[in-house]
């Protein structure tokens, strides 16, 4: 009986096993087990990287490969640009090169504050008090009272809530742009921006769109093109980058129209005023004052102390959020030693002087006018050179009228202009060609770049107009 029970039990369990093993339940379990084993046997791989080359493609690549020279080849333009001048002595308007005193129209000294006695005295005092450097970034023992003074002074001068100080004018715009615009954001840039702005734009790793220089229809086209609907519009930040006064062309941006677009298309405006602050407007507050617009409508405004104020460093002003963000995210602010205290002192003094004596600015405006009118008079340049900049621009660009150059071949024009520059140097006038980095994306026409200063007298202006005129006709007629 006992054996029979065991037999019955075995039979029962066997029966049940057969029933359950054919049931879907066990079947699914089996599938899952197979799937797990399948997963465990797979080898790791990286997707989208398995484009290995075939033997034929490999051979093709090896055949096409030519070794690059150990030293890079210099093109004739680079050789031309390598020419160096050694300045032995420098004063307000004149420099000494090769023991010869030359009138200097090649450097940005718009308000004529270089060699100003008052500023020299203050700088000397600052050096005696603080030393020549500040020995640290702003966050690490590099902040000195004069930096805070200058930030306050700049903010009140620009009529913005806050300002942040950078130790280099070049680093100002090239770290202000990447601190706000990141991967996945959109930057819309004017084609005519100068090199620091181009560097900033490319450092941001954002998607970059270009519009034709000062072409508002083209800007509108790009804005329409980058208009996103729905959830994408919420996460993509959009910036338009312009320069107040374009250093490469001497033109100004049509700010009222851009601000109208800003309301319509919702973007943030970044404006570099390196060459317009201290120059444009009735009290030198830059392009916004020139148009009579509130500065705070421009979200991020950068400027330089190096051009009009004849000192060093740069600033970015805007709302407190804009400024505080840069104190932690502006690469040039965080990782660079702060502005030497004597430069900060001289900048503060320069802004004070500009505020106290508007005569300086009037003189600059009248000088720009005189030089522009003098060069623009019929026959002044014998129809050989033309002025491509605006009458209010302190940067005057003279380019060849019958220029045959294109992007690939500009060396002939550059050599011709260099001849004019060399000839002018023989006659006591220091000029310069506008030189560009070869890797720049949009290089403007070859030109001679003249920077006007406030401390030029009428005699000096007339003298320089005559020299430019004579040298141009001498070089171009002998050519």
């Amino acid at each position: 009986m006992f054996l029979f029970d065991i037999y019955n039990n075995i039979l029962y369990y066997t029966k049940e096993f057969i029933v359950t093993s054919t049931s879907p339940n066990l079947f699914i379990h089996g599938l899952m087990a197979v799937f797990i084993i399948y997963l465990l046997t797979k080898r790791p791989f990286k997707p989208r990287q398995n484009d290995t080359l075939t033997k034929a493609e490999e051979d093709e690549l090896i055949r096409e490969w030519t070794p690059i020279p150990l030293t890079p080849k210099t093109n004739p333009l680079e050789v031309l640009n390598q020419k160096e001048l050694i300045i032995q002595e420098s004063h307000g308007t004149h420099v000494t090169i090769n023991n010869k005193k030359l009138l200097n129209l090649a450097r940005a000294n718009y308000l004529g504050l270089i060699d100003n006695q008052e500023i020299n005295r203050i700088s000397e005092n600052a050096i005696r008090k603080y030393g020549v450097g500040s020995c640290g970034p702003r966050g690490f023992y590099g902040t000195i009272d004069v930096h805070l003074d200058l930030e306050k002074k700049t903010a009140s001068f620009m009529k913005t809530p806050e300002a942040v100080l950078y130790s280099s004018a070049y680093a100002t715009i090239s770290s202000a742009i990447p601190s706000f615009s990141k991967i996945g954001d959109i930057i819309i840039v004017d084609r005519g921006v100068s090199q620091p702005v181009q560097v900033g734009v490319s450092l941001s790793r954002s998607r970059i769109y270009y519009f034709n220089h000062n072409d508002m229809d083209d800007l509108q086209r790009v804005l329409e093109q980058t208009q996103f609907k729905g959830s994408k519009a919420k996460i993509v930040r959009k910036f338009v980058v312009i320069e107040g006064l374009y250093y490469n062309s001497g033109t100004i941006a049509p700010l009222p129209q851009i601000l109208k677009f800003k309301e319509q298309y919702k973007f943030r405006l970044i404006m570099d005023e390196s060459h317009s602050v201290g120059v444009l407007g009735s009290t030198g507050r830059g392009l916004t004052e020139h148009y009579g617009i509130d500065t705070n409508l421009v979200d991020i405004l950068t400027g330089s102390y190096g051009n009009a104020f004849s000192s060093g460093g740069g600033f970015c002003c805007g709302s407190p959020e804009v400024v505080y963000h840069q104190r932690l995210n502006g690469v040039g602010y965080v990782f660079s030693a702060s502005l030497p205290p004597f430069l900060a002192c001289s900048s503060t003094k320069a802004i004070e002087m500009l505020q106290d004596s508007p005569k300086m600015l009037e003189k600059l405006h009248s000088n720009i006018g005189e030089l522009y009118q003098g060069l623009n008079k019929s026959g002044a340049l014998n129809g050989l050179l033309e002025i491509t900049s605006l009458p209010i621009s302190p940067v005057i660009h003279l380019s060849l009228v019958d220029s045959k150059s294109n992007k690939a071949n500009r060396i002939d024009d550059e050599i011709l202009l260099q001849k004019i520059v060399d000839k002018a140097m023989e006659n006591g006038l220091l000029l310069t060609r506008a030189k560009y980095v070869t890797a720049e994306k949009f290089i403007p026409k070859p030109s001679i770049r003249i920077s006007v200063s406030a401390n030029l007298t009428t005699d000096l202006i007339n003298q320089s107009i005559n020299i430019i005129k004579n040298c141009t006709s001498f070089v171009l007629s002998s050519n």
Partner: protein
Amino acid sequence: MTDEFQINRNQSWMHSKRFWVVYIVALMGAKALITVLSPDFEYDWLLITVFHAVVTFFGFHWQKGIPFFPTNQGKYSRLTLWEQIDRGQQYTPTRKFFTIIPIVLFMITLHSNGYKGFPFYINAIASFVIVLSKMPRMDRVRLFGINKY
């Protein structure tokens, strides 16, 4: 060669074996807790499977970027946590572990609740979605543009 600053702290903790043990213990602890609280509840494993599926779906496949460490300059801001694991490398041990967990949970639930009726469908759908999302084919795929930006 991984430098310290290149480590993505959003996903670096997931590779430790100790964490895997803790994960399994936590799942078993959840089961024990439900059993203690209500001994007669027969859908305890189903509850755990579905809860696990929902939580990991939003954690792994919905939330993008690095929520707690605002670094890396937006490099990962378009990627879900699952796509950040091992820098997008597929079938790594970590990925296998986190894929096998829902499969095993599915099997346990199947065992305890059977293959018929409403509970099975919930179990199957939740597990299917969560496992399908982890397949290499679905890497950086946004079906129908859902959750694209």
